[in-house]
């Protein structure tokens, strides 16, 4: 077989936590797994998760009474009722197993110290006795939007420790990882996916991988916000983009984009929510703790969408600190003390020293909200099977599974990568083990020829034309300023027009570098159109959704509208179509009825339908939208009414 064609049982696109955990599960079930990764897998963006991983272990005093059911409740409320409640329940039940499994893989979780412990809660110093019986069990810290302390952590390097432990399992199992490779197209016949066309980022050549099952695990699409993101430079949404290119796979809830309250101004580098969980607070230019008045109950630990909006509004009202890069606010963690900062928040200490030249034990940290997480992604059923294309799966941030709805809680993404990696890996193995590889090489080589032609087309274009980096920068400005924290119909309309223009510009852009080999300008140019198409699905999805839910806030439609919008956006982009097409499906079977989140606004437009009626035809409607059958029937893992026991 030619070196242009590789075969494997399971192809995993993306070497972060979700992809690697999925590969482990498939390999352990006897399937040959191949991981493609843009970077050596330990450099994946999972390593940037700092403060914690949510799982209801309930080992420390302030976690007492926690359970998967409470975690489920927090997650659905956090999602502003956008989540699939069955998926949220599966997640909450399996998160403790995933945390303990990571301990087994070697993660040095912080542990409970029995006896007197010194904490800061809502700005007050308190001493709490930890049960001596709990000494040595995995500890928890507080995070936003949760009723209990639930975030398990390893200092502020939780993602790093988790990724290294999981990658060491990948090495132990001998799973092949091809780093510096990028999937640029899926190979499919319109109903089944059989692999991907790959560009080798060491030498610029293309090859194909044919597999029984293909998994997209490429993370989020934060870089469509240009420089206004905490995401790594590699989070360009390539997986969602190649799924959209098929024309048959829908993306879910693309307009649901999270802005993290505390990223460094101006670089956008993340400063963990663990700072506020451990007792840090926000200050304005007058030194006032404005979040106490804004959210008396949760204060700085309301959900991220709520805190980010209060911050943005407070800066608009003139209470920000002016800088050459625009206004910012202060994060104050001085009172936590140098010892705490240099152990439990060590990575924050390093980041402050390296990027703003400040000592956080003595000085304030300049922060502002920035794009952080993509709730939207490849729409999948509860097994991780993509809508519309058998044999294609998606997992982690790249997917819309959908446990986050319109706002993800801090620490739930790290947990999702491991929980869904386990579950989807199992389903992928099941799918692959019952099948022979259908090596339709004609299909593969046609897709390969297309990809090579696309690259050659870029190199052949000459003369004067727009520059790809300028198009990228313009996209970032449009997305942050017109599809950002506060949105409205007028600006969204402008954004749609601007992105449309940029798509045209992209078709006329000209490369200045024609070098053979990987050619960094070409590598970026090949992604740019896909990024613009994702940006268009976000902007148009936001334009169409005339309500406010979670991170999607419309100043012109400020209320959550459960009467008309208790649904999930699906967007497909037909091959040869100039516009994406939208449809809407029920979020899933709704067990916890829509209500107040416990923070943010309590005003909303109530549902007029009955829950029974809403739930009646969920399966039928979702199937009509391309959902493929799951191994177990819909709703089988929803613990109906369990929440009643913990809501009092």
């Amino acid at each position, binding site marked *: 077989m030619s070196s242009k064609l590789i075969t494997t049982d399971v192809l995993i696109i993306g070497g972060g936590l979700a992809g690697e955990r999925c590969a482990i599960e498939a390999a352990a079930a006897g399937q040959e797994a191949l991981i493609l990764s843009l970077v050596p897998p330990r*450099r994946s963006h999972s390593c940037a998760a700092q403060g914690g991983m949510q799982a209801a272990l309930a080992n420390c005093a302030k976690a007492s009474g926690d359970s998967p059911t409470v975690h489920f409740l927090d997650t659905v409320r956090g999602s502003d009722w956008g989540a699939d409640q069955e998926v949220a329940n599966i997640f909450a039940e399996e998160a403790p197993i995933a945390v303990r499994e990571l*301990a087994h893989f070697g993660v040095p979780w912080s542990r409970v110290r029995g006896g007197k412990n010194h904490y800061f809660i809502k700005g007050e110093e308190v001493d709490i006795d930890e049960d001596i019986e709990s000494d040595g069990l995995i500890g928890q810290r507080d995070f936003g939007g949760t009723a209990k302390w639930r975030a398990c952590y390893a200092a502020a390097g939780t993602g790093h420790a988790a990724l290294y432990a999981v990658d060491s399992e990948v090495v132990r199992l001998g799973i092949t*990882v091809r780093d510096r490779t990028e999937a640029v197209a899926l190979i499919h016949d319109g109903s089944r996916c059989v692999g991907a066309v790959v560009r080798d980022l060491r030498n610029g050549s293309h090859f194909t991988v044919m597999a029984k099952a293909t998994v997209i695990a490429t993370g989020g699409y934060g870089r469509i916000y240009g420089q206004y993101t905490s995401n790594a430079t590699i989070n360009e949404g390539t997986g969602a983009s190649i799924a959209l290119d098929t024309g048959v796979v829908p993306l879910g809830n693309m307009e649901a984009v999270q802005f993290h309250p505390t990223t460094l101004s101006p670089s956008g580098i993340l400063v963990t929510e663990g700072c506020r969980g451990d007792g840090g607070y926000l200050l304005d230019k007058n030194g006032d703790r404005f979040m106490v008045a804004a959210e008396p109950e949760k204060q700085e630990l309301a959900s991220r969408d709520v805190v980010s909006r209060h911050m943005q509004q407070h800066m608009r009202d003139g209470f920000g600190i002016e800088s050459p890069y625009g206004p910012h606010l202060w994060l104050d963690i001085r009172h936590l003390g140098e010892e705490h900062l240099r152990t439990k928040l060590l990575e924050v200490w390093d980041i402050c020293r390296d990027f703003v030249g400040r000592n956080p034990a003595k000085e304030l940290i300049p922060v502002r909200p920035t794009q952080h997480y993509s709730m939207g992604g490849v729409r999948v059923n509860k097994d991780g099977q993509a809508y519309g294309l058998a044999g294609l799966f998606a997992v982690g941030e790249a997917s819309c599974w959908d446990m986050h709805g319109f706002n993800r809680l801090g620490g739930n993404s790290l947990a999702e990568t491991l929980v869904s990696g386990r579950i989807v890996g199992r389903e992928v193995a099941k799918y692959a083990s019952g099948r022979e590889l259908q090596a339709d090489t004609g299909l593969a080589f046609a897709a390969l020829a297309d990809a090579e032609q696309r690259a050659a087309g870029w190199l052949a274009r000459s003369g004067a034309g727009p520059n790809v980096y300028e198009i990228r920068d313009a996209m970032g400005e449009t997305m942050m300023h017109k599809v950002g924290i506060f949105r409205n119909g007028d600006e969204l309309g402008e954004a749609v027009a601007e992105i449309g223009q940029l798509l045209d510009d992209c078709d006329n852009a000209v490369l200045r570098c024609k070098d053979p080999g990987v050619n960094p300008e070409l590598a970026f140019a090949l992604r740019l159109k896909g990024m613009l198409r994702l940006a268009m699905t976000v902007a148009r999805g936001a334009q169409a959704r005339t309500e406010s839910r979670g991170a999607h806030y419309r100043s012109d439609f400020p209320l959550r509208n459960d009467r008309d919008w208790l649904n999930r956006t699906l967007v497909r982009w037909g091959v040869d179509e100039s516009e994406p097409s939208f449809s809407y499906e029920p979020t899933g079977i709704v067990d916890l009825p829509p209500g107040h989140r416990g923070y943010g606004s309590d005003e909303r437009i109530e549902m007029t339908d009955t829950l029974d009626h809403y739930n009646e035809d969920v399966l039928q409607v979702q199937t009509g939208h391309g959902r493929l059958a799951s191994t177990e029937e819909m709703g089988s893992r929803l613990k109906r009414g369990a929440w009643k026991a913990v809501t009092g």
Partner: protein
Amino acid sequence: MSDTEQARRLRFEIFRYNPEDENSEPHTDVFELDETPFMTLYIALNQIREKQDPGLQFDFACRSAICGSCAMMVNGRPALACRTLTSDLPEKIQLYPLPTFKLIGDLSVDTGTWFREMAEKTEAWIHERLPFDPDALEQRMSDDVAAAIYEGDRCIECGCCVASCGLANVDDTFLAGAGLNRVARFMMDPRDSRSDSEWFDVVAGDQGVFACIGMMACEDVCPKELPLLEVYAYLRRKTLGARFLAKGDKA
């Protein structure tokens, strides 16, 4: 930098070679840039690529000094480019790729292969005592032990220590700072079932801690400030102990 000061004109001398281009020869190119406040090498290199030479190859991912992608030789010293402020450097800035790793092009090197091989060679994973039981409570560990393991786990595999190592530059089998630190991290982990004498071959051989020639540039250049001197002392102590134990076994 205050507004009244004249911005510096920075002069970058950058190593260039594209192995995929048969016309390419190793050489250096010079680029000039006006310095701006808080300019890092991440900002500077992207400006050079986007405005002056779109073919320039280098690697960044997190740009916040945690992923380890961007190590390079900065004025002769290995460093993470993303956290290097130009204000800490003279006006003339020489950038070369890390030695000891295979060159991909210009400033980009293949650290992934080196670190994967090191992990395979040292079997850098927990050698489990029992299979995972999803229904069991986690094994207890004191927070102090967890903190000590975490300290060793903080290595980001950037390769600065390897590039700075006198021995690794002439012997590509030497484990170097990152490899030895990785060994020590698993050695001190009570969850790992390997005994000190099982570790002996890995640590005491020609590629292990006793081969180290003690120049300690590794500790000086480590961007995470890992206490490598202490790590090597720990490994020597444990290995010698294992040697005596092994002799005792035979007697």
